[in-house]
């Protein structure tokens, strides 16, 4: 029978419980006792050394003085407003989305973000602090603006509009960037005015990671579907792509995207017979492309695992109802396949986020590169540990947020329960 039907065990005083627990878990044998003591001593030593470094030895001025560098690298100050436009747009759309797809409970991730507030305050000052506040206000405003729509008959239309706004906003912000300085010089997107070499810091890292995830995910899903296709040409192409990319290190792909694309796309080229001059691909775009092409192959293999986990009967049930092949795929198979592989997918996203640090080989100034530059400044010579610890904290905060968000997503989708 279950534990509930047994008589309740007698309640012991806490120190007795603690003593019994320690005896059972820490000192159950002479060997274990030695192990416990040695481990405790080593951990204490490490903790003491770490605390001493963080609170006594370290000189954190290097971080305070280089806030701008860590956040945006060599991004020109006069163009900062572009980043703020991007952040406010993102905040507004996030607010809308959160209300419209309200079943996603983000309380835990938000609580975590709130816990990081001291970090923001340490990092932000003046305009940045004010604009960050307006970002949060924009988020809240959008959330409450969408409040009445959630349970009205306009909900579905509002949702599809929001999805389109995301896509259009994303393209407006990022796509012309890819073609900088494009054949539409300086007219295209939000960031066309800023030379790609001047992108940097946390901003560049986040742009690479966000674009990388947003593009490689659908691409990977398509590759996985293609690999399961019954058309030999499509299947062979997808298998060849996946196996080729997975066999090559990311650094190699980044190099190749840089040099081979440079060779392939000359300064003077033509598209469909229309001559294009002065065309040069941005280095940021090449880095994005490398990351996307690389990540898509891994995502494809993860999704393939999910597709195979969907029982054959699900497809048959869909077919028997008269649903077409595409409908069976998008309505029945993919939703189940993707939710089955959320943990692996998020691992891949986190891994992509961290792999963005490899773009330093293209001489881009991402977060890691900043941490290498900052300690070379006069006055901060040699303070590598502070800079590296700081960016490690930033990487950890973002990666841990992603991991928590995915766990929340799994809970909300009821993975494992239905």
């Amino acid at each position: 029978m279950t534990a509930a039907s047994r008589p309740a065990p007698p309640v012991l005083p806490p120190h007795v419980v603690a003593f019994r627990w320690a005896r059972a878990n820490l000192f159950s044998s002479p060997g274990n006792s030695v192990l416990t003591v040695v481990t405790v001593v080593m951990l204490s030593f490490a903790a003491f050394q770490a605390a001493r470094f963080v609170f006594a030895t370290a000189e954190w001025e290097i971080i305070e003085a280089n806030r701008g560098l860590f956040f945006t690298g060599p991004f020109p100050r006069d163009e900062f407003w572009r980043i703020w436009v991007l952040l406010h747009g993102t905040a507004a759309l996030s607010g809308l989305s959160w209300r419209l797809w309200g079943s996603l409970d983000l309380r835990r991730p938000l609580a975590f973000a709130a816990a990081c507030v001291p970090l923001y305050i340490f990092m932000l000052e003046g305009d940045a602090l004010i604009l960050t506040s307006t970002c949060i206000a924009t988020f809240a405003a959008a959330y409450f603006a969408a409040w009445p729509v959630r349970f009205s008959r306009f909900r579905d239309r509002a949702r599809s509009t929001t999805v389109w706004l995301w896509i259009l906003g994303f393209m407006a912000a990022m796509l012309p960037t890819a073609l900088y300085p494009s054949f539409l010089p300086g007219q295209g997107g939000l960031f066309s005015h800023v030379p790609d070499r001047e992108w940097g810091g946390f901003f560049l890292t986040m742009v690479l990671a966000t674009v990388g995830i947003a593009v490689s995910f659908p691409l990977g899903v398509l590759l996985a579907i293609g690999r399961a296709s019954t058309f030999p040409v499509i299947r062979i192409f997808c298998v060849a792509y996946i196996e080729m990319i997975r066999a090559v290190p990311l650094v190699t792909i980044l190099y190749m995207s840089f040099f081979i694309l440079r060779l392939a796309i000359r300064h003077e080229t033509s598209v469909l017979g229309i001559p294009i001059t002065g065309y040069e691909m941005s280095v940021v775009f090449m880095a994005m492309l490398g990351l996307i092409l690389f990540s898509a192959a891994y995502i494809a293999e993860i999704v393939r695992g999910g597709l195979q986990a969907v029982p054959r009967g699900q497809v048959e049930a869909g077919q028997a109802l008269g649903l077409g092949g595409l409908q069976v795929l998008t309505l029945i198979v993919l939703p189940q396949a993707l939710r089955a592989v959320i943990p692996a997918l998020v691992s891949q996203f986190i891994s992509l986020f961290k792999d963005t640090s490899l773009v330093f080989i293209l001489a881009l100034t991402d977060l890691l590169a900043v941490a290498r530059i900052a300690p070379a400044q006069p006055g901060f010579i040699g303070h590598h540990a502070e800079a590296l610890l700081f960016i490690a904290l930033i990487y950890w905060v973002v990666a841990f947020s992603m991991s928590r968000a995915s766990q929340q997503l799994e809970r909300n989708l009821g993975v494992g329960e239905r």
Partner: protein
Amino acid sequence: MTDDTVIEAPSTKGHDLGNEIIVCRDVKKWFGDFQALCGVSTTVREREVVVIIGPSGSGKSTFLRTLNRLEPHDEGTIIIDGVELNNDLRNVEKIRSEVGIVFQQFNLFPHLTIERNISLALTHVRHLKKSDSKELVASLLERVGIPEQIDKYPAQLSGGQQQRVAIARALAMQPKIMLFDEPTSALDPEMIKEVLDVMHELAESGMTMVCVSHEMGFAKGVADRIMFMDEGLIVEQGTPAEFFEAPKEDRTKLFLSQIL
């Protein structure tokens, strides 16, 4: 069902049988080297209830699944309601939307609510408006006796309830024919009756049904015709009275002696 002038084959339920709605001629099917169907020929008429029985591996499930082309047959002809099943996808989709099937493993969509399980094909194949489909779903769940489960997910239901949802899902398309592939074999004994009751009611309402089943009580009480299959062939068929009381073939007698 009072007009009794056109009855050819007597029906135990007492309704008239209509025109031939399923016509199979010499249907053959191979899985690799193994021949699962060795030339099955039969016809099923409107409002007829046919129960297929037979030992495992006899091809009865395979035969049932060829009727909506979940298994394409290799040779012979299958004509459903005047439309031949062949590689023409338009025919296949037309027939599939007219032929409902209920599986042994229910095959409900676990990521969708009961309401969406049933309305999915209504909105995406029949292009019904959401409000209309919602009403239809409610009435179907009423019919199978579980209206209160509409907002739950399949895993929150018992096996018997899930199978009844599966029946409601198939009925939502207003099929002319219902196929049942061992619908009670995966159920706990106490849940079998609730599913059989729904099937019984469906038969009474005049639905054309082809059932692969091991439920002999159901077969005796509801079927117009019992079809006994073995080794990819129809060995013997007849009304329940003929079949159970006076089987002709030795193979049938042996099978009946083992199960009764």
